[in-house]
C-alpha cells in the first residue's frame, strides 16, 4: 500500500509534466488542426532557457522569475515557429503541414545541438529538495511544487479560456474560423496567442522535466513530447480538460508499470495504449466525434 501511494505521487509528478505539455498539443490542434511535432522541442528550449537564466547570470534570480522569463521566451519562440513555418501552409493539404512540423522539430533539435553542444547540461533543482512529511509520507518539495504549480497554471488557463474575451475568441476560432473572421476576430493574432500559451506551458513542463531528471540535452523533448501527445489523444484531442486528464493518466500508468511490471516495457505499454485508444475510441475520453464531410 505504501509503495502504491508513493508511486501514485510519482505518477502525479510525471503526469503534471505530461499534462502541461499535452495542453500545448491539444490547443494547437484545436485551432489549426495540426499536430505540432516541434512542441517537444519547445519544451527542450524552455529547459535550456531556465538553465541559462538560473546559472549563467552573475546574480541569482528568484525561482519564479526564472520560470516566468523562460516561459516568456518560449512563447516568443512558439510564435516565431508558427509565423515562419506554419502560417503559409494553413490552406495546404494537412500532410504538408505535418511534414513541415516534423522538419521544424528536427531543425530545432539540431539548432540546440549547435548552440549548446551534444553533451547534457546538469540541471540542479532550483528549489530546496528536502522532503516534507505528510501523513507519514516523505514527499520531495520539488514534487509538491511541480504538482502545485502545474495545477495553478491549469486553473489560470481554464479561467482565461472560459472567462475572458480573448479566450472566447480562441474558442470561436477553433469552432469555425470563417464565422470568427466575420465576427471581427483577428484570426492571426488568436493563432499566435494560442501558440504563445501552449509554448509557455510546454516550457514549464520542460523545466520541471529537466529538474526531475536533472539533465538537459537536445533530444530530451522527443520522448516526453510523444507521450504528452499520446496523453492529448487519450483525453480527446482539441479538449483542454481532456489533455489534463490524459496527462495524469499516462503519468500514473507509466510509473505503475515501472513499479509493478518492469521499466523495460514502459514504452511498449504506453505506445500500445495509444494504438488501442486510436482503434477503439479515436476521439478520446472527452473529445467529440467529428464526421468528415465531402
Amino acid at each position, binding site marked *: 500500500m505504501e509503495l502504491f501511494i508513493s508511486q501514485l505521487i510519482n505518477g502525479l509528478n510525471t503526469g503534471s509534466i505530461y499534462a502541461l505539455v499535452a495542453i500545448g498539443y491539444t490547443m494547437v490542434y484545436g485551432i489549426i488542426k495540426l499536430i505540432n511535432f516541434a512542441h517537444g522541442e519547445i519544451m527542450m528550449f524552455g529547459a535550456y532557457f531556465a538553465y541559462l537564466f538560473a546559472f549563467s547570470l552573475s546574480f541569482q534570480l528568484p525561482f519564479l522569475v526564472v520560470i516566468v522569463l523562460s516561459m516568456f521566451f518560449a512563447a516568443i519562440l512558439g510564435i516565431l515557429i508558427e509565423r515562419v513555418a506554419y502560417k503559409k*501552409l494553413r490552406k495546404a493539404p494537412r*500532410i504538408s503541414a505535418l511534414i513541415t512540423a516534423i522538419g521544424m522539430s528536427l531543425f530545432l533539435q539540431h539548432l540546440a545541438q549547435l548552440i549548446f553542444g551534444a553533451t547534457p547540461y546538469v540541471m540542479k533543482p532550483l528549489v530546496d529538495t528536502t522532503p516534507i512529511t505528510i501523513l507519514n509520507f516523505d514527499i520531495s518539495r520539488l514534487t509538491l511544487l511541480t504538482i502545485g504549480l502545474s495545477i495553478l497554471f491549469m486553473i489560470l488557463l481554464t479561467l482565461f479560456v472560459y472567462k475572458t474575451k480573448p479566450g472566447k475568441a480562441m474558442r470561436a476560432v477553433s469552432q469555425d474560423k470563417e464565422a470568427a473572421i466575420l465576427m471581427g476576430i483577428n484570426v492571426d493574432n488568436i493563432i499566435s496567442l494560442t501558440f504563445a500559451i501552449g509554448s509557455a506551458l510546454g516550457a514549464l513542463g520542460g523545466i520541471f522535466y529537466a529538474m526531475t531528471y536533472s539533465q538537459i540535452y537536445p533530444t530530451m523533448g522527443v520522448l516526453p513530447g510523444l507521450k504528452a501527445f499520446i496523453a492529448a489523444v487519450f483525453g480527446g484531442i482539441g479538449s483542454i480538460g481532456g489533455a489534463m486528464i490524459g496527462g495524469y493518466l499516462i503519468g500514473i500508468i507509466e510509473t505503475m508499470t515501472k513499479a509493478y511490471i518492469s521499466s523495460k516495457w514502459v514504452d511498449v505499454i504506453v505506445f500500445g495504449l*495509444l*494504438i488501442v485508444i486510436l482503434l477503439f475510441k*479515436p476521439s478520446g475520453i472527452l473529445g467529440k466525434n467529428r464526421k468528415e464531410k465531402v
Partner: protein
Amino acid sequence: MMKAKVKTIKEFLLDPRFVNYTLIASIFIVMFTLIQFQLVNRYIYNLLVMVLIMIVMSTSLNIATGFLGELVLGHAGFMGIGAYTAAIIGIALRPYIGADLLLFVVSAIGAMTLAGIAGLLVGTPALRLRGDYLGIMTLGFGEIVRNLITNLSSITNGAQGLAGIPRIMTFPIAFWTTVLIVSVIFLFMNSRHGRAILSIREDEIASESVGINITRYKLIAFVLASMFAGIGGAMFAFKEGFLAPVSFNFLKSVEIFVIVVLGGMGSLSGSIVSSIVLVFLPEYLRDFKEYRYLLYSSILVITMLYRPKGLMGTKEFNFTQFKASVSRVVTRLKTRFRKGRDH
C-alpha cells in the same frame, strides 16, 4: 486479328521500353566494370549499395505515402522486422546453403513474409483512421518494434546487437533486387489496381461511389509497402553484417520519409533521384558535420513551403518528354541567338 506492327529502326530505338532496358543495362555494365577494375574504392562501393537499399525503402514507402496519400511514420519498423528476420534465417541456413544468391533469396522471402504479416496486422485496423491519426499510429508501431527488438534479447541479442550475419550483399545482387522491386512497383502502379489506389488519394468519397473497395485497396497498398520494406531490411542486414535496434528508430523512418517527400510524393523516379542525392550529399557534407542535419531539416521545411508536392511532383522521368523538353530549350536558345545576331 492481330497484326504485327512493323517498326522502323528509329521507332524501335526510341521506344520508351527499349530506352529503359538499355538505360538500366548500361548503368549496370558501367558500374560493374568500374567495380571489376577496382576503380571504385570500398567506401564508394558501400555507399552505392546503401543507395540501392534506400531506393527500395523509399519507393516502397512511396506506395503508401505518395500513391495512396497516407502518412506512414513507422517504415523503419517494417525494415527492422525484415532485417532481423533475414539475419536470423541467414545465420541459421549459412552452413547448409553455399550459394550467396540462394541464401539471400530464401532469407528475403522470409523477411518479406513476416514484414507483410506485420503490415497486415497493423494495417487492417489502422486504415480506418484519418490521415494524421494513421501517422501517429504507425509511429507508435515503429517505436514498439524497436522496443521489442531491444527487449527480446534471447532472439535478437538486444541492445548489444546481432553480429555474425553473412555479408553477402554484393553490388550485382543489390542492383538486380532493386531493379526487380522498382519494376514491380511501377507495373503495379500503372495497372488497374494502381489506378484505383491513385483515385483514393485524389478523392476517397468519389472513388467509393464509383465502386472502388477503399479498405481493400488501402490495405493492398499498405501491405505491399511493408513487404518491400522487409526486403529492404534484408538487404541492409546482409550489407552491414551487424544489426542494432538503434538503426531502426524514428529518425530512420523520418529519413526515408524525407527522401519520398523531396523526390515527390507519387513519383518513383523522384524517389530514386533523391535517394542518390540524399545518400551521397551528407557524405560530402562531412566537413560541415554540425550543420548537416540543420541543412537537411531546413531543406524539408523550405520544400514544403515552396514546392509542397516535392521536387518532381507526381511526374515520372520520361525519356520522350525529356527529349522533347531538351529540344524545346535548344530551339528557344537558337532563336534567341539568331535574334541577338540580327540586332
